[in-house]
């Protein structure tokens, strides 16, 4: 059998709406029998942070950053019309209305379909966060060479 077609997604943004779009594409691609890798970098790391507990880091600037930039699938703001949480609440209601699963469920579903999650170690180093900050679904911690090696053979490569 021919090698599977590959899809790579770079998740740079830490916003709920963009993450939803990314996971829809990932789940769609996995449903079509494609091999999917998602690379989470910079603000995108927020998508795969644990929802529970605090994020530990060292130094005043990193501590401040991680307090203001806590992340976690349940905490992501919208890129537009956040309105101090009112917009996000409304989008949540509308999504339930069309039986669209919340982001946490999409993450679990993607994982169940074999989608691979990689966290960018450079962003982790800059932000001062360790592996324990992330959900257990994350498969690997790596850098741009890993991404490019996969993207080189990818039929669809997106930056979100």
């Amino acid at each position, binding site marked *: 059998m021919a090698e599977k077609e590959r899809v790579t997604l770079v998740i740079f943004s830490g916003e709920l709406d963009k993450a939803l779009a990314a996971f*829809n*594409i990932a*789940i*769609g691609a*996995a*449903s*079509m*029998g*494609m091999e999917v890798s998602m690379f989470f970098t910079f603000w995108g790391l927020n998508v795969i942070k644990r929802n529970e507990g605090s994020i530990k880091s060292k130094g005043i600037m990193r501590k401040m950053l991680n307090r203001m930039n806590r992340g976690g699938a349940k905490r992501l703001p919208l890129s537009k019309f956040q309105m101090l949480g009112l917009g996000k609440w409304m989008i949540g209601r509308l999504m339930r209305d*069309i*039986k*669209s*699963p919340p982001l946490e469920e999409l993450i679990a*579903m993607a994982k169940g*379909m074999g989608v691979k999650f990689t966290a960018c170690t450079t962003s982790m180093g800059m932000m001062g966060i360790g592996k324990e900050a992330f959900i257990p679904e994350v498969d690997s911690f790596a850098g741009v060479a890993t991404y490019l090696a996969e993207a080189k053979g990818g039929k669809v490569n997106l930056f979100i």
Partner: protein
Amino acid sequence: MKADATLDCIGLYCPMPIAQTANKLKELEIGQVLEILADDEGIKEDMPAWCSTTGNELLGIDEEAGQYKVYVKKSK
């Protein structure tokens, strides 16, 4: 059209109908037909695209009053 199994995707939007189709088809044998019920119009374009990518055969789409019956034959 006669089907070996039915999948109810009424009320579901992309990508759930194709994700569930992919999942359900695993339970069928090659040559068997799956009937998918859906009401998101996107299915009219998405299911042919899903079938041509995955190598399964789209036997037809019946549309009636905003609901779609899609027939997919498991081919591999």
